[in-house]
């Protein structure tokens, strides 16, 4: 009843080509962003920001990058952990080796290094497809794991191979407190998400999707598979690289290669699938599901057990957490195989028809 596009006539293609053509959506998103920037810092506790919102934001960003490659261009990758690692370690090197290097350029340069790495390991995609490619990208993952453990230069000769940063500043403002860290991540995320959205709704995005859906037909209408795939690798690894930098600099502070191990790659892939392939929104849903849900379960399960008068040991909580989490994944997939983002849009469609069922 309230959610309608009735009466919202588009008089120009520009109007119809807006990111959110429906006015309610536009307002909702703007309100959400405003809420995130203004209200959350006031309302959220330190814990909520440091332990949940910051990792959520950073992982959303990484998932966004992965989604460009996997969801939009159809190149399944399990090497995203490696791209994050490259982003993080190279940003670290720029940051500590060049005196006076500001944080943001360091992160961006880290992202650019990840781009180079991504394009390099994206080359096999010109020949290898699907699951074969997915497994082949693990080569990138394990190679990066090894490289950052073995090559001393990358870790600035730290004997154990773990590195750390401190004294983060942006335009002279220290990024120390939870609020400043949160706002910094949020700002980076919003900017990059906007750029990514622009790309996927423009010609290049259509090229990616065309390659994903049917590469032979795409070639016939003049899309160069090489260009499309490599740009997707480049853009995606740039975003993932920046996310890696944030994860290392802002969230962890100190890290070792295991922080970007193969399970990070897997989790990122899961985020985009469960969130919804080929949807910017999906990256957020997915990150929420994979990053936040286990933590919530971990805290809620003992209380639920408490309601039934049981006490659960930590081990039992963790095991039940795994089971519930696995069960929820399956359940959501059964409800909507195309991910949470699709569930969301179906929900909106229903809302549009409401109160009529069809």
């Amino acid at each position: 009843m309230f959610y309608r596009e009735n009466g919202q006539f588009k008089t120009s293609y520009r109007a119809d080509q807006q990111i959110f053509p429906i006015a309610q959506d536009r307002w909702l998103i703007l309100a959400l962003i405003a809420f995130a920037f203004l209200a959350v810092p006031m309302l959220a506790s330190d814990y909520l920001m440091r332990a949940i919102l910051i990792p959520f934001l950073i992982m959303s960003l990484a998932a966004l990058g992965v989604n460009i490659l996997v969801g939009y261009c159809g190149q399944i990758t399990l090497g995203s952990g490696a791209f994050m690692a490259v982003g993080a370690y190279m940003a670290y090197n720029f940051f500590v080796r060049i005196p006076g290097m500001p944080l943001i350029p360091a992160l961006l340069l880290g992202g650019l290094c990840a781009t180079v790495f991504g394009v390099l390991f994206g080359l096999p995609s010109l020949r290898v497809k699907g699951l074969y490619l997915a497994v082949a990208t693990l080569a990138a993952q394990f190679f990066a794991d090894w490289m950052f453990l073995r090559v001393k230069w990358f870790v600035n000769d730290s004997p154990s191979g773990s590195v750390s940063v401190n004294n983060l500043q942006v335009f002279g403002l220290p990024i120390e407190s939870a609020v400043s860290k949160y706002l910094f991540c949020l700002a980076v995320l919003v900017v990059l998400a906007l750029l990514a959205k622009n790309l996927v709704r423009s010609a290049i995005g259509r090229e990616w999707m065309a390659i994903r859906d049917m590469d032979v037909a795409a070639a016939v209408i003049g899309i160069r598979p090489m260009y499309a795939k490599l740009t997707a690798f480049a853009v995606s690894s740039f975003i993932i690289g920046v996310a890696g930098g944030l994860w290392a600099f802002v969230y962890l502070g100190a890290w070792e290669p295991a922080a970007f191990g193969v399970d990070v790659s897997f989790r990122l892939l899961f985020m985009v699938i469960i969130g919804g392939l080929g949807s910017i929104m999906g990256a957020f849903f997915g990150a929420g599901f994979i990053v936040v849900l286990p933590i919530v379960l971990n805290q809620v399960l003992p209380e639920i057990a408490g309601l039934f008068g049981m006490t659960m040991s930590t081990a039992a909580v963790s095991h039940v957490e795994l089971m519930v989490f696995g069960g929820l994944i399956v359940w959501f997939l059964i409800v909507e195989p195309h991910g949470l983002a699709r569930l969301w849009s179906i929900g909106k469609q229903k809302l549009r028809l409401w109160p009529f069922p069809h």
Partner: protein
Amino acid sequence: MSTPTPVLNVNGIEVIYNHVILVLKGVSLTVQEGQIAAILGGNGAGKTTTLRAISNLLKGERGEVTKGSIELRGERIENLSPADLVQRGVVQVMEGRHCFAHLTIEENLMTGSYTRKDKAEVARNLEKVYTYFPRLKTRRTSQAAYTSGGEQQMCAIGRAIMANPNVVLLDEPSMGLAPQIVEEVFEIVKDLNQKEKVTFLLAEQNTNMALRYADYGYIMESGRIVMDGAAADLRNNEDVKEFYLGMGGGERKSFKDVKSYKRRKRWLA
């Protein structure tokens, strides 16, 4: 056929895809034993959906029957699995061929006889398919994906015959087939219908052909049956003649002479 017994009885079904898209809005039809019934209608009318609803293949498309009932010889079948239906002799030839891409043509045909346990019978059926479609015999060892569109269509039809069905749901059998093969396919339908008493329900765009071979016809438009009747009657109906047979005013119109001024004007604008 003294007292016709209904084999299939579709009763006011509604189908919804994806929980939101309502496609069939109360479709009812009845197919008698030994009959050839045809569903006609334009693109998107819901023919395929109707057939899927009967053979229970909707689930994979995330569709569901929300209202109405479907009966096979008096038995409610909405909750049977497609495999159960094949066991009961109901086989669908899907629109768009759906051959098993990695299997050879012959393996494709053999999978069709999955439910038949009698080896001799299977061999007989295979021979039968090869005599119907000699083209398949020459291509028997190539993977289905690497055969031409028409060959795949023959393969799909042949595969259904391999299951020795007694009710066949044929979705656009003539699509992509050369004219003389179309003719043959309909001859095969007639043949099976008369010799082996197989009942057919076909969705077809080639109205001319369909009405020539069918006993009874349903015309569907946007999810509803808008007209039904004996094939002969439909053939003589003026509207059907004009819209589906292209014989408005008695003479067949050349495709070249069809004018669509509305469209042309739009195009020029």
